[in-house]
């Protein structure tokens, strides 16, 4: 399952087992909108995606993970649009016969997703301001933009 969608992430659906009897371990990572970042109060995150490319990149991550670890399932879901505090923005599932592979793959998937998939978050702060998160120094542009 690969999905980039404005719908809330359904974790029960995410967990639904493929009928693969060789699965012994499932690791799920869920990213959740925090109410506070670096001491500032956040009310929501707004995610924007280059959706067609994001889906292709997620497929590529799934493919790479399947080459590195013997996975029996691999699912990647990213929500776009507004994600209120306490709700999930991203979910990754990696299943394998044994837990070491499932943990390693899940960790690699979320780490690599955060580096490569064309999706951006904009923090909306309680004081009414908002800020695109670009993990490189772009403060100059941020200050210059509306």
């Amino acid at each position, binding site marked *: 399952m690969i999905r980039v969608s404005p719908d809330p992430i359904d974790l029960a659906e995410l967990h639904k087992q493929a009928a693969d009897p060789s699965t012994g371990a499932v690791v799920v990572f869920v*990213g959740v909108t925090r109410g506070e970042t670096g001491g500032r109060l956040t009310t929501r995150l707004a*995610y*924007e*995606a*280059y959706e*067609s*490319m*994001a889906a*292709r990149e997620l497929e590529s991550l799934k493919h790479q993970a399947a080459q590195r670890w013997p996975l029996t399932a691999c699912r990647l879901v*990213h929500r776009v649009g507004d994600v209120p505090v306490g709700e999930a*923005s*991203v979910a990754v599932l990696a299943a394998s016969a044994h837990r070491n592979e499932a943990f390693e793959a899940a960790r690699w998937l*979320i780490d690599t*997703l*955060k*580096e*490569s*998939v*064309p*999706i*951006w*978050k*904009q923090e909306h702060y309680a004081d009414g301001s908002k800020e*695109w*998160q*670009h*993990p*490189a*120094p*772009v403060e*100059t*542009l*941020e200050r*210059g*933009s*509306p």
Partner: protein
Amino acid sequence: MITRVLLFAAARDACGDWIEVDAPEGVTARELVALLAEQFPALEPLLPHCRLAIGEAYAADHATVPPHSEIALIPPVSGG
């Protein structure tokens, strides 16, 4: 050739959903980004950190930009 470049996030806030840049045939991805800096000064602070996507895939700096592909400017990503 006139090449349309899709924009996202802070780049989109600065210049809109897309821009059109005038570039010579055979321009490379890196050269196209340099042209964006000249023709769209509002993008300049962000560009050193951006990558170019051609046909929905990250392009190498020296990749040639083909005439009819979908081109996008990818600012540093922050999904997750």
